[in-house]
């Protein structure tokens, strides 16, 4: 019996430690971060325009939302990558930005208004969200999530694109 109680107590301790390890860019409610399912909650909803012709009718799009320091790593990761359905790519930067060597439309969004219009949730630490939204060929947002590590998790974007 003592072994079972030790296991149960140890798991409780691990749960507390895990909850404390959340980063400032993570979603305050982890259930909504990288849920892996399309059309969660009120989705799908029409996607606001990021730039002229984006999203474009008949073409899927991925709209990334990043902090300025995340732009270069993301652009490097996107360079040469071939995502399913060859979506249009947009990177919305919460501030000023430098060059991006990927084939993506980069726009500034210093007050995170575009991120708000896409319905991205506020990160736990406040400020502009870091994540992405996937838009289908008829201009509807099918997936949106905070994901501060998206640069290393582009295969998840690929999985979501395959499902749209």
């Amino acid at each position: 019996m003592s072994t079972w109680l030790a296991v149960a107590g140890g798991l409780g301790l691990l749960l507390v430690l895990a909850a404390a390890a959340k980063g400032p860019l993570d979603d305050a409610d982890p259930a909504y971060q990288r849920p892996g399912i399309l059309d969660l909650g009120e989705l799908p909803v029409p996607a606001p325009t990021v730039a002229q012709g984006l999203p474009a009718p008949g073409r899927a799009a991925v709209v990334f939302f990043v902090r300025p320091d995340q732009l270069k790593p993301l652009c490097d990761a996107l360079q040469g990558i071939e995502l399913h359905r060859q979506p249009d790519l947009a990177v919305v930067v919460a501030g000023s930005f430098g060059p991006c060597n990927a084939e993506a439309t980069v726009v500034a969004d210093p007050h995170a208004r575009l991120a708000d219009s896409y319905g991205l949730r506020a990160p736990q630490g406040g400020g502009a969200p870091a994540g992405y939204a996937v838009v289908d060929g008829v201009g509807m947002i099918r997936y949106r999530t905070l994901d501060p590590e998206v640069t290393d998790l582009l295969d998840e974007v690929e999985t979501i694109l395959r499902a749209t």
Partner: protein
Amino acid sequence: MNAARPATAPRVVRLCLWCVVAVVVEVGLYLSYRGHDARFHWFTHFFVGSAVALVVMSVVALRTRRPVPVPLVWLLVGHLFAMLPDLAFTSGHVAHQTWMDVFLGHVSSHFVPGRNVTWYLVFLAATACYLVVLDRLRPRQ
């Protein structure tokens, strides 16, 4: 008393081996998630899968009148069943769909009020249930 030792020692070794296997596999499952996911999804599916396994273990123990063998493996199997859609997501590019709730509420279990704290309490209740059953099966003096 001495005659029982040779039979008990190998049983303990065998049980410990299964414990090591179960713990190693659980660490592997944790690492199969990445970043934030590991800290949330692993716990949800572990607690849900293990709680169901503990209830099944309690029923089996009551019916057979003895504790189930290699109990940690039962928990592992429950966990694996609950997280199958995540394995499909990471290894097969299969996004989640609502029907995947057949895997012990794989999608909707994340959205219960209280989140993982709720599932931890459910896990504790299921553990208590199994321990009560074990206590009832213990021979009385």
